[in-house]
C-alpha cells in the first residue's frame, strides 16, 4: 500500500528539482528595481514606506496595546530599504534595513538571509528572518489586508530570530513544509547570548493549489495549515501551535487562524492560588475580504474579528475582542497603496476603554 505513495513522492521530488520557486517566507517588501538582471545575476534594490494618518484615536488608545494609534496624527509605521540578489537562479541573498530601529541589541537589521534553492522541494535559508509558524506573520506586510496583523499573532509569534530554515513544495505546491531551528534569544552580532534554541515546523496543504488573496480571478482555492514550535529558552520553555485556513473564490477571501502558546519557567516557585506560573495565551481571528474594481482601481473591503486572551488563567483586561473593517485601494500596483480602517478593541472584563481608532495608510514600495 505504501509503495505507490512513496514512488509518487519520489517522482514528484524528481520532477520538482527541475523548477525552483524560492522561499515561502515573504519579507516585508520585495525589491523591484533591477540593478543587474541577467541569466546569472539578478540584483535588485527596493524599499517600503508606510505612513499612517490617524484621523481619530480614543483617549485610551495605545499602540503598545494593539490599537492602531495612540493619538490623532501621523506616524511612520515602516521604513525599510534593502537589496535582493539571485545568483545562478539558486543562491539568494536578501538584506533589509529597518530604518526606524537603532536598537542597541539588534541594530537596524530587519532581514539578512542567504538561501540556496536546490529544488522546489528543498530550499535552505540561513540568517535572520521570520519564523515559519503563523500564516499572518508570514504574509508580507506590504500586502496585509488589514493595516496591522492580528493582535494574537503579534503577541504570540516570536519576532525575527537568527537560524536556519528548510522548506519545500511538493505535488505542484499542493503540499508544502517549512522547518526551522533558531536561536531562542534575540541579539544578532552577539549571537545566542542567553542560550537555548527554538524549533518550528509548518505544513500546508492546498488541494487545488495555493490559495492567495492576490489572485482575485482564481476559482475556489483553499489552503490549510498547521504549525508548531518549541522554544527551549534561556529560562522558559514555550510550546505553541497554530492552525489556519485560507479560502479564496473570485475575489472573496476568508482567512481563519487559531493559535495558542504555553510558557513555563524552568523554576516554578509557589504562586498565589489566583495565579498560574505557566502562562497560556490563545487567540483566533477571522478575516474576510472582497476584491473588486472601480475605474480600474483594484479595491478590497475587509473585515476582521479577533478574540485574544493574554493569560487564560486570569480574566482581566488582556481578554479582548478586536473588530475592524476597512477599504484597501491598490492605486498603482504594486507601488502605491492606500488603506482606511476602523478598529475597536473591546475589553471583555473591567472598565471599557475608549480605544477606537480610525487610520488611513499610504504605502509606497518599489
Amino acid at each position: 500500500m505504501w509503495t505507490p505513495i512513496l514512488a509518487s513522492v519520489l517522482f514528484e521530488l524528481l520532477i520538482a528539482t527541475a523548477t525552483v520557486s524560492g522561499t515561502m517566507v515573504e519579507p516585508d517588501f520585495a525589491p523591484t528595481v533591477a540593478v543587474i538582471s541577467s541569466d546569472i545575476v539578478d540584483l535588485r534594490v527596493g524599499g517600503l514606506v508606510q505612513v499612517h494618518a490617524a484621523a481619530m484615536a480614543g483617549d485610551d488608545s495605545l499602540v503598545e496595546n494593539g490599537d492602531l494609534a495612540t493619538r490623532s496624527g501621523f506616524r511612520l509605521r515602516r521604513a525599510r530599504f534593502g537589496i535582493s540578489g539571485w545568483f545562478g537562479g539558486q543562491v539568494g541573498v536578501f538584506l533589509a534595513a529597518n530604518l526606524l530601529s537603532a536598537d542597541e541589541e539588534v541594530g537596524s537589521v530587519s532581514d539578512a538571509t542567504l538561501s540556496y534553492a536546490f529544488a522546489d522541494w528543498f530550499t535552505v535559508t540561513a540568517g535572520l528572518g521570520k519564523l515559519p509558524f503563523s500564516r499572518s506573520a508570514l504574509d508580507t506586510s506590504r500586502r496585509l489586508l488589514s493595516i496591522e496583523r492580528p493582535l494574537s499573532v503579534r503577541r504570540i509569534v516570536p519576532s525575527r530570530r537568527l537560524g536556519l530554515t528548510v522548506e519545500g513544495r511538493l505535488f505542484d505546491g499542493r503540499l508544502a513544509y517549512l522547518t526551522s531551528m533558531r536561536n531562542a534569544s534575540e541579539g544578532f552580532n552577539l549571537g545566542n547570548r542567553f542560550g537555548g534554541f527554538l524549533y518550528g515546523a509548518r505544513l500546508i496543504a492546498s488541494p487545488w493549489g495555493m490559495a492567495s488573496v492576490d489572485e482575485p480571478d482564481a476559482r475556489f482555492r483553499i489552503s490549510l495549515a498547521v504549525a508548531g514550535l518549541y522554544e527551549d529558552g534561556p529560562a522558559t520553555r514555550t510550546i505553541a501551535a497554530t492552525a489556519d485556513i485560507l479560502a479564496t473564490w473570485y475575489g472573496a477571501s476568508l482567512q481563519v487562524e487559531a493559535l495558542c502558546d504555553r510558557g513555563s519557567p524552568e523554576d516554578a516557585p509557589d504562586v498565589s492560588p489566583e495565579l498560574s506560573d505557566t502562562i497560556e495565551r490563545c487567540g483566533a481571528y477571522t478575516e474576510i475580504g472582497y476584491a473588486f474594481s472601480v475605474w480600474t482601481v483594484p479595491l478590497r473591503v475587509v473585515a476582521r474579528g479577533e478574540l485574544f486572551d493574554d493569560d487564560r488563567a486570569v480574566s482581566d483586561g488582556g481578554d479582548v475582542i478586536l473588530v475592524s473593517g476597512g477599504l484597501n485601494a491598490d492605486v498603482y500596483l504594486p507601488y502605491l497603496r492606500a488603506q482606511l480602517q476602523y478598529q475597536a478593541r473591546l475589553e471583555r472584563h473591567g472598565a471599557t476603554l475608549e480605544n477606537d481608532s480610525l487610520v488611513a495608510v499610504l504605502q509606497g514600495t518599489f
Partner: protein
Amino acid sequence: MHRTLLVLALFAGCRDSTPSPRAYRIESLDQAIGGPVASGRVGDYLLENDRVRLVVEQSGKSRTPLGFGGSVVDADLVRSEERFRRGRGLDLLGQVAPTANLYLARADGPGTVVITASEAGAEVTAKAEGAPIQQVLAAFNLLLERRFLGDGADYGKIYFYDEYELRPGEAVLRITTTVGFDAPFCPPQPEDGCNASCDDILYDDDCSCDIPARCASAQVRSADPLPDRPAPAGLSDVLLGDLPRPLGSGMCSSDDDCAPGATCTAVTAALGGDFSVCRQPQQRDAGVLIGDMLLFGGHLSPFLPEVGFDTESDIRRLFDAGEDTLSRPLDVELVAASGDGVAYAYAPSDGRVFVPIFGGPFSMGATGGASCANDDPRCLERTLVRSTRLFAVGRDVSAAMAALLEVKGEPQAVLTGTVLDDAGVPASGADVFLVRDRNPPCKPTCTLEEIFAANREQTVGPVFLGGTAGVVTHARTDPKGDGRRDGRYRLVAPPGDYFVLASRGDVARTRPVPIRLEAEVKLDLRLPKTSRLSYALFDGTGEAMPGKITVGGHGPLRPLELGGGRSADDTVAVDQTGSGLGSLELPPGAYDVVLSRGPHFSIHEERVVLRPGETSQVSTTLVRQVDRTGFTAADFHVHAEHSLDSSAALEARVESFLAEDMDRLSSSDHDTLTRYAPLIDSLGHADQLTGQVGVEVSTQELGHFIGFPLRYQERQDGAAIPGFGAPDWRDALPAQIFGSLRALEDTTPIVVDVPHPYSYFDAYAIDPLTLEPSGSVIALFNPLVNSENFHGGFDAMELLNAKGFDLVRRPTVGEVRFYARGLDDLIAKRRSGELSQVAFERSVHALSTEATRRMLHRTEEEQEAALEGDGVDLACRCGSNGDCAAGLVCDQATLSCVSPLETSSTAAPASDDALCRSVRGVVDDWFTMLNRGVRRVGVGGSDVHSEKGGFHDAGSPRTLVETGATHPAQVTDADFAEALRAGKVVVSNGPMIHFTIDEARLGDTLPVPASRAVTLRVRVERASWYDVDRVELYENGALLRSFEPRAPEVTVLDEVIQHTPARDAWYVVIALGLRGRSLAPVYASAALARFGTLELTQRIYDVIPRLRSLRIPRNPSLYPTFPFAITNPIWVDVDGDGWSPPQSPPSWCVPSKDYGCSR
C-alpha cells in the same frame, strides 16, 4: 619669521591677558550659567572673570530653599567649548548663604542686592536686616542670655552686609560678611566726601571717609578665626557662651557654687528657664557666630581633606559616643564638594571650618566668632563684626582646593599623569586620590586598607574618634566639560609624602604608589582588568521584562572614603533594566546576585564567579507569585533630578519604576512640577506605566505636602513659570498651601497628601489622644504654627514613608526604655574599650532592629492601654539617662530630663505599657483619627531620591489602589483618584492583604442589622523569598485578633472570622514580617542611623529648659526592611443609620470629609 612675531605681538597687544572681572545683571538667560541645577534667572547678578562665573540671586524670596535673595546660587568655570556657553554650563551648586547667629540677610526689598564698586575687582553686595533661617531660631534671642551689647539691645535685629567680590585671575569668590546689631546702615551722601566706590560708610570695606554725625558711630573688628578659644570649643560655646563639658554639667545657682574667681553666669534668659554655669573672668559669654549655610545639592558629594568622601561617619561616631556636634563639630581646614565636571571648595581666609552636620546635600560651615569675656560684657557694643570666606570653583576637588591654596599663598606641589585602562587606553572619568603617607610599617607594598588603618591609628582625637584615613585630595581624569579625552589628571597638594592611587568607579583600582611630592612630579597609573556581568529577565511567556539585579559581595568595592556606597546587606552594586537585558561592570571575583522584579514576583539567586577581562551571564524567568489583580501600584512620593537633593535622571527613574513592577509614577519633586508622561511615551513604556504630575511642597517648618494630579504648565506669556506653577510656601499657612495645590486642578480633583506626617503633626504638637494641636513652644516665635492654623483639609497621609519603621507605631514606655538603656550599655562598653567600633556598630544595629520589632508588634494589652490613654500625662522625653544631656538624669516617673536634685525619687516609675506620647506613631495617629471620624486615606510613599539602590527604592512602599482596572497602568486619572479617595487602598512594601467583610471591600461601608454577625475574611500573600509572621486585625483601634502564620505557601493566611460588631466600627488589617526573612537585600536595610537637625539639636534643648518640651527620646533607625502591609478600613454601619465614630471629632475636622463633624 619676523613677520610672524609681529603678528603675534599685534594679537597680544589686542588681547587683555587678565580680563577685568565684571558684575552685571542678567538680561537674558544665555548670559546665565546654566547646568543641571542652575537657578540663575533674568535679573540676577552675574560675577565673572577669566576663570569662573557665579550668580548672586536678586532680591526677593529665594528660588532655592533658604530664605531670600542675595546668596550664591550658581557657580561654574568659564568654559571655552561652545556647547557649554550661552547659559548651558555645568553649575551643580545648590546655595551658599552667609549666616550670623543662624540669621541671614532678608534681601527681599528694592536695593537690597546691588552691584557695588570694588577697588580690587567686581562686587555684588546684599545688604539687609537679618531674618532667622527658620522662624523658630528667633527663639534664641528671647531664650538666651546675651550681654555683648548695651542694655535693652535687640539681639534679633541684625544688619547684614554680604559682599561678594571676584578679583582678576582668581577662581575664588571672596564672601565678606559684616554684621552689626546696634548700628544701622549708613549710605554715603555727596557731602560726606566719600570715595566713589563707597556704598556704606559703616559696613563697606571700600570706604575711606569719616562717619557723619547722622549715623551711629561704630568700629569694625574682624571675627576671630575658629577655634576662637581653647579646646574644647564648639559652635554651642560661641552661640551660648562657654559651656562646661560634658554639656549640661556644671550648673550653679549662685557664685557660691563656683570656684574662687568664677561667677555663676546665666546661659538662658528668664524666658528660657533657669540654666546658669560657672565662668572664669576670661571665659566667653554668648557672642556672634558667622559662617554659611552650604546647600550642595544631590549632584555633589561633600569631601573633607584627610577624611575623604565619608563625611557622615565621624559625625555619627560623635553622636554615638554621646557627644553632640554643635558642641564638638568636625574641625577641618576646608569643605569641598565634588560633582561631574565641577567642584567647589569653601574655607575661611584664616582659621578652620567647624561643620556640625552633613545631612546628604545639606551642610553648614562656621568660620568666625566674636564674643566678650565674662568680665568684659558689652564688648561688641557699636562694633561691627567682619568675616571673610573663600569659595573656589574648579574642575575637580583638587583644582578647587588649589585655587584656595593659591589665594592663601600656601605652597603647592603638583602631580600630573595619565590613567590608563588595562589595555593601555586613556581612562576618562577615573578618580585619582592622594593619601597621606605617615610611614606605615607595610611600606612600600601597602594595601589601601593598611594605609587607612595606619593613618587612623595616628590621628585618633576628640573630634575624629576613629581617626582620619588621610585622603588629602581628589582629581578626576577628563571630567565633564573636558573636551580632550586623554586620561590626564592633575593633583595639587602641599609638598610632602603621599600614596597615590587611581580608581574607576567601583570596578577598578590601582595599588597605592608611594610618592614624594615636590614641585612638579609626573606619574602614570594603570588600572587592572575588570569583568562584565550580563543579565536577562524573562516573563512566563519568554519575553524579556524589566527588572533589577542586586549584587552582593564581601566588603565594599570602593571604600566610603573614596566615594563608595554604604550597605548593611553587603550589597556592592545594583542595576536595573527597562528592557529586560542589562549588564554591569564589576571587579573580578565571586558574587551573589539576585534578580528581581518588585516584591510580588519570585526572585532568582545565583552565585557567579567573574574572571578578569571576561563576561559572565545570568538569566532567569521570574513569575508573579502574589496576586494583585485589579490593583494599580502607585507611588506618590518620588524624586529625581528636578529635586535639589536628587541626581537621579528622569529616564533612570522611569526605568526604576518598570523594574519594580509599578503602574503609576506620580512625581513629587521639591517645589517643582515634573511631567513624566511624554518621557514614558517616548521610551515606549506607555502600556506599562502612567505618569502623573505632582509636587512636594517642602516648607521649612510646617512639614511637607504633596498634591496630584496637577495641571502642568511650563510657560506663561512666553516666560518660564517658576517651579512650573508649584505653590510658594513661604509665609503661607497650611490652608493656603492646600488651596494653592487645589488651584492647580485640571480635570480631576486634586488629592492633597501629607508625606511623613509626623513633621506636620509635630509642628503643631498634635495630641495623640485628642488630636488637638496642643500648642508647640515654637508657636511663640513662629505664628504659622499657632494651634488655630492647623488645617485638616488634606485627603491622604502616608502611613509608611520609605523604610522608616520606627515612626509607624507609637512606642510604649517599656520599648523606649529597652532601646535607651541598651544604647547606654553599648556606649559604655565602647567607651571602656570592651567593644570595638565595628562590634559596637553591629550591636547597635541588632539593638535597633529588636527595638523596632517590639514597637511594630502590638499586643492587646498595649493597644488597650493606648486607647485608654495610659501614659498621656507623661512627658516621655527620655528612656534613660543617656537620652539627657550630661549632668541631667532621666526621671523614670515622669520620663523627663531633670537635674539629679529634681528627681521624684519617691514616685513610682511609669508603667512599661504606657504610651510614649512624645514619639509619633503614624498608624496610631491615623487610628485615632478614624476613631474620631476623621477619614483620611492611608497611603505609602517611597520618597525615593537615589537613581538605583541605596536606602530608598522606587515603589517601596507602594500604594495599591483597587481600581478594578484591567490594565492597571492605564486607568484614567479620574478613575484612579476616585478609587483612592474611596479608600480602596492597601499600603505595602511586599505582602498583599485581601480583606472583605461579607461582600464589602476596602473603603466600602457595610450596613448590618444590630446583633448580626459579619464574616471577615483575611487572606495574606507574600512572595516566597520573604516572610510574613504576624497578622493583626483591628476594630476601632483595638486589636481584635492576631495571627502568627507559619505556612510555607504564598498564601500564608486565609482566615474567616465570624464577628458581631457591638457598634459602628472600622476594621483594618496589618501584616508584618518581624522575625523571619526580611526584604533585604532586594530592598536594602538601613545602613546609617538617621541624623538630621532633630538629632543635632536634641542636646542643646536640655541646656535651655524652655525647649525641653521639644526633646524626644532616641529612636532606633537601623533595621532591615521588614515586610509590612496595612489596609485602609472597611466600615461597618450597625443598624444602617449612618456611620458614627466612637469618639468626637477634633476641632479641625472637615464637615465635607469627616464623620460627625458639624463645625
